[in-house]
């Protein structure tokens, strides 16, 4: 789950990290009122789940309340890398002496937590890693041991920050690690972490991704689930508890298992088509789940054919076939459907489907044949 900057800052503030006062605004009038309460100068910042806001004109300095009005008018509704700005964060402006970078994430190769700290903040860290990798001080933290004060201090020293920032930075990276672990985050990133002219170290931006698997420990994270950016199709699938990712093509895909669903999307592409989605219905393939999946795909206006790719393992072919037949009796589907059914008792399943076959419901023996048929039907 990706947090908006302001949610990330509230998350950090809960662990004692210094952030600036600010308010969320959904309209120009909200933004102006917030700026009046905070007192200019303020920053007007687009809240979207993507980077590159500054370059896209989504972050502006406002010296006066009139400036706030102008910027809010320009930024609300702005499209930043496919994300339309619907909310702003109006924040008290800070004086900046230096800009740093700090983050924690999981290093999947090392199977340890990886902290990165750099005196070159305020720019994309990928660019720093590419051009000047020595400018990033890295620390690998064993989760069993945690980040000790000594290790944090040595790490901060290795990053060559301004000596005036040292103590403040050590304090913040330790709190950042605590937030990362206790908050079950996949990523916590501060870019920039700033040193002010009066030598305070301060959090000026926040990027936080939380682990959705850990919601059972954090019931309050449900509010973040509601602010995830999903397109209409993804929202509908999410409400039905389906594993769905929207794509741009015309062949609707339903498969059981994440790997098989990914593979199905690939095969559609290999035979010259484009999938409209990734959709994993999991192991069961019962009528209710299948009907829900078909409904979501049927509501996608781009879809012109549907490819159902099921491999029966423990779930037998006749159970799958029964699920499909029942689902089709529950929902009216606009597009022709091609089914590939293989695995346990696939023959029995195919026999059950046989009387229902038509030019709207077809059966193909292999994944490739089914993909070709579905792509041809999609035109």
């Amino acid at each position, binding site marked *: 789950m990706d947090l908006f900057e302001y949610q990330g800052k509230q998350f950090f503030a809960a662990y004692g990290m210094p952030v600036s006062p600010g308010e969320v605004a959904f309209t120009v009038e909200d933004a102006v009122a917030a700026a009046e309460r905070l007192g200019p100068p303020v920053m007007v910042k687009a809240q979207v789940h993507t980077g590159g806001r500054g370059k896209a004109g989504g972050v502006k300095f406002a010296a006066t309340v009139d400036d706030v009005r102008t910027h809010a008018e320009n930024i609300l509704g702005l499209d930043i890398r496919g994300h339309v700005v619907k909310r702003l964060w109006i924040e008290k402006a800070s004086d900046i002496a230096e800009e740093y970078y700090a983050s924690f994430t*999981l290093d*999947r*190769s090392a*199977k*340890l*937590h990886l902290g990165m700290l750099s005196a070159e903040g305020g720019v994309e860290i*990928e660019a720093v890693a590419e051009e000047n990798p020595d400018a990033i001080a890295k620390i690998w933290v*064993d*989760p*069993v041991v945690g980040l000790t004060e000594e290790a944090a201090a040595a790490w901060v020293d290795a990053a060559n920050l301004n000596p005036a920032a040292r103590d403040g930075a050590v304090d913040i990276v330790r709190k950042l690690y605590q937030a990362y*672990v206790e908050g*079950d985050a*996949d990523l916590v990133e501060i870019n920039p972490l700033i040193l002010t002219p009066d030598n305070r170290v301060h959090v000026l931006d926040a990027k936080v991704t939380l*682990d959705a*698997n*850990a919601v*059972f*420990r954090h019931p309050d994270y449900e509010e973040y689930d509601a602010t995830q950016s999903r397109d209409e199709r993804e929202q509908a699938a999410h409400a039905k508890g389906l*594993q769905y*990712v929207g*794509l741009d093509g015309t062949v609707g895909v339903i*498969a*059981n*298992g*994440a*790997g*098989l*669903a*990914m*593979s199905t*999307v*690939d*095969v559609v*592409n*290999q035979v010259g088509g484009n*999938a409209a989605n*990734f959709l*994993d219905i999991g*192991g069961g393939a019962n009528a209710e789940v299948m009907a829900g999946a078909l409904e979501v795909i049927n509501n996608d206006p781009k879809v012109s054919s549907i490819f159902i790719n099921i*491999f*029966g*393992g*423990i779930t037998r072919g006749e159970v799958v076939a029964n699920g499909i037949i029942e689902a089709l009796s529950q929902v009216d589907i606009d597009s022709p459907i091609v089914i590939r059914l*293989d*695995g*346990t008792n696939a023959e029995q399943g195919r026999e059950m489907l046989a009387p229902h076959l038509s030019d709207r419901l077809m059966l193909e023996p*292999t*994944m*490739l044949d089914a993909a070709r048929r579905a792509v041809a039907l999609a035109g």
Partner: protein
Amino acid sequence: MSIFVDENTKVVYQGLTGSTGRYYGLLNREYGTQVVAGTNPRKAGSDVDGIPIYATVAEAVEKTGATASCIFVPAPFVRDAVMEAAEGGIDFIVVITEGVPAHDEAWFYNKLKRDYPGVRLLGPNCPGLISPGKANIGITAGHIAKPGGPVGIVSRSGTLTYQALYELKQKDIGCTTCVGIGGDPVPGTSFIDCLEAFEADPDTRAVMMIGEIGGSAEEEAAAWIKANMTKPVVSYVAGVTAPPGKKMGHAGAIVSGGKGTAKAKMEALRDAGVRVGQNPTEAGELMAEVVAGLD
């Protein structure tokens, strides 16, 4: 031979009294696996279809001599269940449960490495493993696998593993052991662990490796293959068309920052001399060619 488990492996099921644990535990027993015990502190002294339930793993180990554990408990309890198994004397722990927080996985992976270096962990979020004809621990449908050899399978994806087993069986090709390492960010057993074991197993003469997008496990495996593997490897990697920044079902299947793409993984594997199929069927055909060429 097989790797990690065989017909003599005694297994305790943590979560046998739950509906999923019971379903697969009994299926595994029916297949021939030595399902010797279940655990549940509130149901100690009872049984599940004749399989005794003990309060703790330590007690189950003491009474039955179990050396492996299969975990079906819900995600919030997996961390404690893994440590209970290790502390109880188990040396092979299989976690089927999905939805385990990444911080828990990172913690118990490192805790085991530090305090129980002899313990092997498989999973979480994996289908388990099957040594066809000998033992099936987890949720794989046993009858889709042909016993014997000469192929060993290791995979990050459940259904694609079943697909591979099935396609090989259709071609009358047997399997020594099929290991599902799971699709999570911190898998307890890696591709390399399995490749190493297959390389050492005399009955395994070729290996099928099924990868997917995300992380760099396939690239690391490719480097290991290039340096160490004498047996032929056939591979398939799912997710060529996956968009960046989107999790494709599995928690670990995500292309981020331009890293973890299927294309890069396939290139690394090809560079290591691995034959790479464009889809699961093609990978099956390539394996059939490899097997036909074995003397």
